[in-house]
């Protein structure tokens, strides 16, 4: 291939793919800059629109012409979804950034699954290209088809149109201002709510458009694939610092060109062929590296910033809490007796997941950080354990400990963006890191490699399912003690302060950065242990066991349970929801519905964190209960019941 032909090919491929990224990225940036809510579910909205298009267009369904189907899915479905999301965004405006992420992850799960439920399948639905596909012209020997030209032109027209709209129309100017000072906008005669509503309608219309453009290019309507493809657009949005629409367009094109260039270089240069997997993952690389190198001042959070509330003290006495925790472990110890046989494996998986949720809880609940790559950390720990136990033949317990320790440096890498970035950008960076880990590193021979799986030996005397379950239960108990000790220690107070008032922490002389690194390292250690335990359940594990997308589900479930429960009960319930419930309800319909329920739960948890509704009620009850406990009447009652007790109100002190 000549030089001109090679670069003509890169240009054609890169610009077409980049145009699709650009459309998705512009919709994303538009809603973010006008509402302050970064919609992780943008790809899922695109997928839902593609399902609607399929329903109206496919000959197996209603069989309308593609123009009608496109009009319905883009100009009706898209704006209406925008109206709905604007309502959600308005309520999420008052929640901390962590819960904003949780809320939009919930939206992602809801929209991604809605189409599968509607069509009663989570398999791909075949969809051929409906735009004219003949050859239009050639660029340096590379043929360009009409559908490619149309896609590029649509993206360009939208970019120019949006630029002019924001630059010259009053509504556009209003959109730029609405996030900064809605009250001021109100005084100028504009309705801020109306402006936001229009912005969301435009944003989701863009998402719908990208969905119906991408799906036929992929050859099918597939909720998972579309969701992932639009996540590629996050990389494009980095170029505009998540706020500039023209730069988001440029970013989309640049990411497409980078992807095409890396594909080309790794395929034609023999020395680079081992790096060929970098090409398809170029958008994730751009996202992760971009968030590391873009100056911090450029990555400013849009919209009102709500501080995370420090986790409130438990209303129960230490002894009561200990009794409850012991009781929970007693119930878990009875599981092999009650649920012996086919269902025990789900409980075994739950044991491993409890450790993972404890790890995630330490990050999210205690320190207010975000991780969308926790499954990846578990995979690293799992592989490390396999290498230590099966290849180096270390004793099982030593291998487990080493596996946890070897995961710590990876946690430290993730902590780098945590040091310099706020919650949203940290979430994006960890998402990019998790995707890279799964799609590039899992397949390397020093991780899982291309084989069927890597071995996970069990220790002597624990080869049976029940003994191994009890061994895991013991490790869960140790992990729970470790987390409880951390939470009650000075480190725990520092972590809560990181979430609550990082500036105050700095003023007091403590290092926020060091504290964040420490919590990521501890969390990674526990996640690594979890991965090692998981592999032992089956004696083997492969990349399929650690799908990076599940990190989003983990966060959604964690947020849901942590809304109502404290550390250990939240982790146990989350693990049961994640691993056990689906095992007991054997219904294909329920399998489709379960992720949607997790999504609804995550969204609900996020909305409750705004201090309204049930969340506020719980909060109020807790405050009043505290007040009653501190009252003189309560003190006298306590004194009567425990006359020799020197501290009559131990219950209101400390943190579980």
């Amino acid at each position, binding site marked *: 291939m000549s030089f001109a032909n090679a670069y003509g090919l890169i240009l054609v491929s890169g610009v077409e793919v980049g145009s699709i990224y650009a459309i998705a990225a512009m919709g994303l940036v538009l809603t973010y800059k006008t509402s302050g809510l970064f919609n992780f579910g943008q790809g899922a909205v695109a997928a839902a629109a593609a399902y609607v298009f399929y329903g109206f267009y496919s000959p197996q369904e209603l069989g309308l012409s593609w123009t009608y189907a496109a009009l319905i899915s883009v100009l009706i479905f898209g704006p209406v979804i925008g109206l709905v999301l604007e309502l959600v965004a308005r309520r999420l405006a008052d929640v901390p950034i962590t819960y904003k992420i949780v809320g939009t992850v919930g939206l992602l799960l809801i929209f991604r699954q809605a189409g599968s439920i509607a069509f009663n399948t*989570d398999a791909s639905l075949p969809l051929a290209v409906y735009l004219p596909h003949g050859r239009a012209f050639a660029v340096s020997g590379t043929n360009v088809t009409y559908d490619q030209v149309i896609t590029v032109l649509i993206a360009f027209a939208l970019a120019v149109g949006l630029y002019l709209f924001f630059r010259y129309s009053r509504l556009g100017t209003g959109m730029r201002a609405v996030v900064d000072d809605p009250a001021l906008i109100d005084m100028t005669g504009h309705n801020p709510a109306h402006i936001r509503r229009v912005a969301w309608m435009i944003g989701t219309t863009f998402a719908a458009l990208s969905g119906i453009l991408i799906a036929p290019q992929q050859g099918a309507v597939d909720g998972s694939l579309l969701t992932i493809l639009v996540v590629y657009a996050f990389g494009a949005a980095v170029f505009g610092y998540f706020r500039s629409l023209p730069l988001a367009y440029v970013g989309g094109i640049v990411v497409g060109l980078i992807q095409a260039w890396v594909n080309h270089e790794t395929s034609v240069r023999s020395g680079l062929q081992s790096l060929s997997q970098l090409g398809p993952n170029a958008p994730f690389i751009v996202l992760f590296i971009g968030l590391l190198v873009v100056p911090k001042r450029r990555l400013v959070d849009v919209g009102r910033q709500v501080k995370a509330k420090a986790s409130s003290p438990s209303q129960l006495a230490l002894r009561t809490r200990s009794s409850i925790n012991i009781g929970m472990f007693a119930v878990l110890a009875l599981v092999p007796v009650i649920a012996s046989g086919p269902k025990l494996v789900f409980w075994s998986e739950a044991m491993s997941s409890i450790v993972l949720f404890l790890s995630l809880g330490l990050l999210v609940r205690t320190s207010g950080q975000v991780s969308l790559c926790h499954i990846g950390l578990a995979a690293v720990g799992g592989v490390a354990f396999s290498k230590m136990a099966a290849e180096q033949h270390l004793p099982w317990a030593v291998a487990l400990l080493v596996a946890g320790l070897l995961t710590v440096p990876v946690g430290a890498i993730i902590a780098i963006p945590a040091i310099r970035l706020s919650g949203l950008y940290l979430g994006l960076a960890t998402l990019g890191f998790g995707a890279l880990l799964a799609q590039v590193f899992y397949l390397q021979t020093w991780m899982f490699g291309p084989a069927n799986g890597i071995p996970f030996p069990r220790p002597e005397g624990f080869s049976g399912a029940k003994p191994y379950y009890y061994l895991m239960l013991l490790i869960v108990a140790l992990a729970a003690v470790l987390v409880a000790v951390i939470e009650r220690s000075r480190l725990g107070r520092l972590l809560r302060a990181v979430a609550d008032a990082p500036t105050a922490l700095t003023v007091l002389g403590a290092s926020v950065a060091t504290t964040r690194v420490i919590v990521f390292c501890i969390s990674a250690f526990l996640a690594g242990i979890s991965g090692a335990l998981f592999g032992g359940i089956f004696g083997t594990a492969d990349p399929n066991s650690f799908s990076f997308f599940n990190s989003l589900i983990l966060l959604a479930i964690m947020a849901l349970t942590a809304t109502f429960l404290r550390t250990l009960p939240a982790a146990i319930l989350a693990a049961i929801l994640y691993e056990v419930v689906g095992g007991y309800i054997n219904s294909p319909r329920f399998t489709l519905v379960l992720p949607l329920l997790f999504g609804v739960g995550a969204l609900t948890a996020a909305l409750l964190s705004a201090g309204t509704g049930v969340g506020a009620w719980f909060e109020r009850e807790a405050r009043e209960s505290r007040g009653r406990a501190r009252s003189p009447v309560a003190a006298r009652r306590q004194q009567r019941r425990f006359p020799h007790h020197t501290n009559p109100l131990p219950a209101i002190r400390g943190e579980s």
Partner: protein
Amino acid sequence: MKQRQRAKIAAIVALALPLALTSCGTRLPHSAVVAAADGGAAPSSNSGGTTAGGVTTPGASTSAPGVTTPSSSAPTTGTSIVPGSGESPGKTTGGSGAGTPAGQQTQAAGTSHTCAKQGSPIVYGQVGTFSGIIGGSIGSAVDGLKIWAAATNAVGGIACHPVVVDSIDDGGDNGSAQSGVEQLVQDDHAVAINAFTPITTAGIEPYIDQHRVPVVGGDLLSSAWYTDKNFFPQGGPLQAVLYAISRYAVLQGGTKYSFFYCIEASPCTQGENMLTKQGIAAKAGLHAVGDQPISLAGSNFTQQCATAKSKGANVIFIGAGVSAVNAIGRDCASQNYHPIYLALSLGVTNSQQSDPNLQGLAIGSVQFPWMATGTPALTAYHDALARYAPTLDDSGGAAAGWTSGELFERAILNLGSAAYGNITSADVIKGLAMIHNNNLGGLVGGHLNFHANAPATLDSCVFVAVISKDKWAPAQGGRAICEP
């Protein structure tokens, strides 16, 4: 306020209407097939939980719930299944064994069967990833096995035992796969397992080995099929498939190839490892010009096509799903590039045969290509399909399910008079171990050789099918290609 309410109502209507209008109740082909095979019983089989059903009471005119009684007579082409009778025309083929015990059974070709004494049902469990992206490719294995059970029961079952097929979907989760096998064996008393577990074999293998339950037929993608003595594959390994289609490409004039493999699923990278790094393609006579990873989420493969074209590749091997195969065909055609396409049978469907870009697409299959005809065994398959699932979109998965059933049946028939007693897992293994140099009447490409205490030894012979003139058709005159 009213404006807001109107917006809310519009939102709800717009959310609900498109989904309701376009989809409700329109997509239940799998269940419908199973319902048909189960004689109209409630379709609940393919995933999650078990389905007791599919048994026939020979000679009886009524059926219990889930019982298959398509009609009072046997299928028109259905012929007798006589234990130990060796090759017989129609559904059952191959094998050797003892003769029919006197008084046990009276069967005649083309007629209904009567058994002096009805045996207890034999439960053949099936577990697999029948949902999700993988399920889209292999989900029809459930149909294939159900149809086999219906056809078998219609001619008297196996040695007067009605056959019950219980299917469980593991959803791609190792835990569900393990739990499913335990449930099938412990609760449903399955004596053998049929496993379509391309990514969940690790979940079932420990239990299978611990309890010595034979795994009879399945997806054959995991190495366990050829290294574990409790796995009894209905054909050769993936390497044999890769060799056969590579060899076919060479016979069609192919000289250089590029492998487009997906980065998201380990079976894709395993294929790349075998074909290129282990040199299977080179052994068949194809020269590698550079493999190219692709993302299943990718929307354009023009660059990969053009790169392969510039390197002189006239063969493209695709290790990805159906939608990627279609998109690659489209994008290569747009560059006036029309190589020989090779894919695994899991990456194709019937709908592709009319795609002008995919003419010449070839696949390999250890069992018969689903469209093949011309032998009694194949006629039995197509007749059963026409009878029990006339609307089924026939595919490689259904053929694999059917062939697995035939293998299971052969194993039990090999027990001779013992086949009329209670059948256990040990009996099935014993019967399987009696299968030597058997190709199930031509249903499988190579000859099967099983052993009680050692992994299977097989001929690595594979059928090839190709899209020709808008139709899938057996290649090479229906003869299998064998790896030397």
